[in-house]
């Protein structure tokens, strides 16, 4: 499976993580699914609603914001294909807490932000038995490649 994302969207996700630092940033990835490939076409950054004292290592998006995002995606002819969030000063790997709250099917794009600078971004999908995650290939697409596609 693969997540294809235009370079400017990945840059916007990483910039949101840097802007939220030292707290976690998060949001929705909107796009479409074709077989084993999902293509991102928009992002909806969200407010981190976790208690202020815990936002350096936790994020939460409210169910009402989830509903609004689903309706916005519908209106754009897209669907929510995943969630992005940052891990301040930690690797771009899912934690046990990520697993506890993980939803099936969504791609989880995690960006490591160290000392305020975004590093690597990696994508994960929870296994069907909820025992862990499998890594998903991330392919960035330049504007030229998007026009050719």
């Amino acid at each position, binding site marked *: 499976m693969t997540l294809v994302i235009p370079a400017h969207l990945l840059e916007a996700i990483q910039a949101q993580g840097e802007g939220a630092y030292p707290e976690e940033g998060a949001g929705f990835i909107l796009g479409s699914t074709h077989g084993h490939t999902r293509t991102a076409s928009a992002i909806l950054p969200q407010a981190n609603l976790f208690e202020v004292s815990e936002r350096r290592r936790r994020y939460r998006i409210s169910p009402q914001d989830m509903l609004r995002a689903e309706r916005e995606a519908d209106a754009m002819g897209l669907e929510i294909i995943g969630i992005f969030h940052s891990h301040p000063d930690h690797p771009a790997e899912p*934690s046990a807490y990520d697993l506890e709250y993980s939803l099936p099917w969504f791609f989880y794009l995690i960006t490591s932000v160290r000392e305020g600078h975004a590093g690597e971004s990696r994508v994960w999908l929870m296994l069907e038995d909820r025992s862990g995650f499998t890594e998903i290939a991330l392919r960035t697409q330049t504007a030229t490649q998007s026009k050719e596609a």
Partner: protein
Amino acid sequence: MNLLRIPTPLRPYTKGQKQIPVEGRTVEEALQSLAREFPAIEPHLFDETGALRSYVNVFLNDEDVRTLQGPATPIGEEDRIMILPSIAGGCP
């Protein structure tokens, strides 16, 4: 029969359907009705003890049932039911 709205990540378990007709007089019975028809959805709604997973919120006419009577909240014929997950995660 009430219509139960399914969030995007759970639609693969309902053959892509956004709304499912469910039976039951309470929220819990409605969710059980859903799980009977689509058994693969069950582990993503309930934990090993049978309790609703912490990210699963059920709204009855835009009200979180946790603020009503929880899973025992009665449902009427005209009530709209929605499963809406909280999205959360974080560092180790």
